[in-house]
């Protein structure tokens, strides 16, 4: 049984019966953030949106940015945005959490808002998400009970990959444009120029627990460098795809056992999501699921996605399909992304289709380096890492493809990337600027 209660969908009364009411969270007083920030530091909580950045630092940065503006500044009041966008197509953990434990998330928003002195609070989720009615109902329950001193509003930005990046989210809340912002970070100039705290919904639910039980309690499980539990989305060649909650540091093999084991011999794993990286199967299942152990193993914990690819699939075809989608998800702001990602996608497509020469392969390697560290957001870097780690993890398959062969081709024809496969690729592309769809001014 986990801490976050993902097994059942909790109404407000069930939530209160399980966790008790949120204790009064001390408010920010002038320059001093509320006391919860000390507990957050003690807890060692790190953000679960993918970056695993120390949560208390983000809180402090927002308060400092607010204080630096002076008392007469019209932009001095902070904003809280809960990020429930779950832009990673292979991830489902935030959706599962929002469906089951919405009140824990809202408690976290309320606790965060008091601690940093926010005057506006939002929960952002994808337009057309099936969770909109569930979360609206949960908010209505809370309003009727009068438990949130600051009203929390739902906002629904377009369902685009880059729209869930934190600067894009605050850009959308402030101005109705869901493109990433460079160089200002949200804590500096976020929604409408205000200091903005963007936190993933899972992080906020951990914050709600820390507000109740304290930082020392929080550290009792998980690894010291990234304590607590974490949700993991497990997909691909496993018996039971789904979301599990485990203490950080749980070996991959144990996570797989919770999902009924694998369906076939495994060739490799996609870790972290499409902004994450591939690793070869050899020995990887003994690795601990925590940010540092993952990095040491050449993997990325990121948004805590674990996707298995089995021997019946050609990994290069999967990579080509996803890369084409990633190229199409560019916000269209930076040249290396606008032109670089489609070039890389074409190259990977040729490789998957076994039309690739050694010279083109070399060119691909150069392009993968060329698009890195040159964007206003990390979309090109993430896409390049997705491809380059795949080429390394599946070097045998790459060699076969350069030789016009494929380990799977005898069993089925080469699919056209973009048409079929196992990794999820959402279909529609929506405009990133859509003021008509905004919920708030």
């Amino acid at each position, binding site marked *: 049984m986990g801490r976050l209660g993902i097994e059942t969908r909790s109404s407000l009364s069930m939530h209160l019966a399980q966790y008790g009411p949120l204790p009064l969270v001390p408010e920010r007083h002038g320059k001093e953030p509320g006391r919860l920030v000390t507990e957050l530091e003690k807890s060692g909580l790190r953000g679960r949106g993918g970056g695993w950045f120390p949560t208390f630092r983000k809180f402090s940065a927002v308060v400092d940015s607010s204080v630096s503006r002076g008392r007469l500044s019209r932009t001095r009041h902070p904003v809280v945005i809960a990020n429930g966008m779950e832009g990673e197509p292979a991830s489902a953990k935030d959706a599962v959490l929002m469906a089951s434990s919405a009140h824990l998330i809202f408690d976290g928003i309320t606790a965060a808002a008091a601690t940093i002195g926010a005057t506006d609070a939002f929960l952002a989720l994808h337009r057309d998400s099936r969770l909109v009615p569930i979360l609206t109902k949960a908010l209505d329950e809370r309003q009727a009970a009068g438990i949130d001193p600051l009203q929390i509003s739902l906002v629904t930005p377009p369902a685009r990959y880059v729209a869930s990046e934190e600067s894009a989210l605050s850009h959308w809340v402030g101005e109705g444009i869901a493109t990433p912002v460079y*160089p200002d970070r949200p804590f500096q100039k976020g929604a409408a120029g205000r200091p903005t705290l963007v936190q993933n919904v899972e992080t906020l639910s951990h914050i709600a627990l820390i507000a109740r039980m304290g930082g020392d309690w929080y550290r009792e499980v998980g690894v010291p460098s990234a304590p607590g539990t974490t949700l993991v989305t497990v997909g691909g060649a496993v018996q039971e795809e789904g979301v599990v909650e485990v203490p950080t540091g749980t070996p991959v093999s144990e996570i797989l056992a919770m999902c009924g084991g694998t369906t076939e011999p495994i060739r490799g794993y996609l870790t972290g999501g499409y902004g994450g990286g591939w690793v070869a199967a050899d020995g990887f299942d003994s690795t601990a699921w925590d940010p540092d152990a993952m990095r040491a193993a050449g993997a990325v914990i990121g948004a805590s996605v674990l996707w298995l690819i089995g021997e019946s699939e050609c990994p290069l075809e999967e990579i080509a399909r996803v890369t084409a989608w990633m190229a199409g998800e560019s916000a269209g*702001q*930076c*040249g*290396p992304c606008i032109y670089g990602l489609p070039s890389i996608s074409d190259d990977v497509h040729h490789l998957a289709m076994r039309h690739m020469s050694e010279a083109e392969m070399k060119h691909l390697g150069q392009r993968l380096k*060329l698009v890195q560290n040159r964007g206003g957001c990390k979309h090109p870097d993430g896409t390049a890492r997705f491809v380059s780690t795949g080429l390394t993890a599946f070097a045998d398959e790459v060699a076969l493809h350069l030789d016009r062969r494929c380990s799977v081709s005898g069993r089925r024809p080469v699919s056209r990337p973009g048409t079929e496969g196992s990794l999820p690729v959402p279909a529609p592309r929506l405009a990133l600027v859509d003021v008509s769809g905004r919920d708030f001014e």
Partner: protein
Amino acid sequence: MTTTTEDITATLLLNPTTCDGRGLCHHAAPDLIELDEWGYPLLPGGGLRADLTKSQLKAAEDATHACPVLALHIERRK
């Protein structure tokens, strides 16, 4: 010749969301800024920030002044 931190007088900053790839920076300062295969500028070191020595400062100023969309910016060391 080795570069020490004292030799660094300024940092050249590129805003990639503003840059249109017109390429004028490269024409103004071909030894400092290259263009990639799509016509977008490559600063020394390949990222969005490049430390400048005193001898590079003039070229960086020329590139910055040449940019029609103000995508380049020089931050001087105090």
